[in-house]
């Protein structure tokens, strides 16, 4: 899974029919020190993320392994909201 920060939400009317009704977010990959990296994903939100919040995404076919995204044509989904990271 990847650590990401939610940058904003995407409005998209013309899209694959299976994506109807999804909250679609633009997220940025971040390091554990929360510094942003030049890597972005468009991910379906399955846990109700707010803007600026930190979360975990899964990419590839595993993105379809939640009840919300099963049989949907997605390959990136936010599956967890991060409260805190404790490092050694």
């Amino acid at each position, binding site marked *: 899974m990847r650590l990401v920060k*939610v*940058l*904003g*939400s*995407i*409005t*998209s*009317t*013309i*899209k*694959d029919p299976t*994506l109807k009704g999804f909250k*679609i977010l*633009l997220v*940025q990959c971040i390091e554990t020190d929360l510094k942003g990296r*030049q890597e*972005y*994903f*468009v*991910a379906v939100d399955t846990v109700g993320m707010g*803007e*600026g919040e930190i979360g975990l995404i899964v*990419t*590839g*076919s595993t*993105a*379809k392994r939640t009840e919300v995204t099963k049989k949907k*044509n*997605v*390959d*990136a989904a936010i599956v967890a909201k991060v409260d805190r990271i404790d490092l050694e």
Partner: protein
Amino acid sequence: MRLGRAIGNVVSTIKHERLAGIKLMVIKPVGPQGDLEGRKIIVADYLNTASGSLVYWIENGTTICKVMGRMSIPLRGCIVGQVDKIDLEKGRRVIDG
């Protein structure tokens, strides 16, 4: 999915049979500030996307086969949505698709 700008079309008459009839577009990866260093790639489009539109696409093979309704297509990217706008959190900047 990944964010990008559709910047052109690819015409290819001689190609793998299972690519027949599939529209191919050139995509430039894009971040919220516009450009990204990533190299341009070629993806399939079935949403009648116009060149210049901001889009997002999937890279996962099995999903692409399902979208295209054909098994084992030699294809590594397919547009699944066009962006109307992105509401960015800091400074409320909005990117129009």
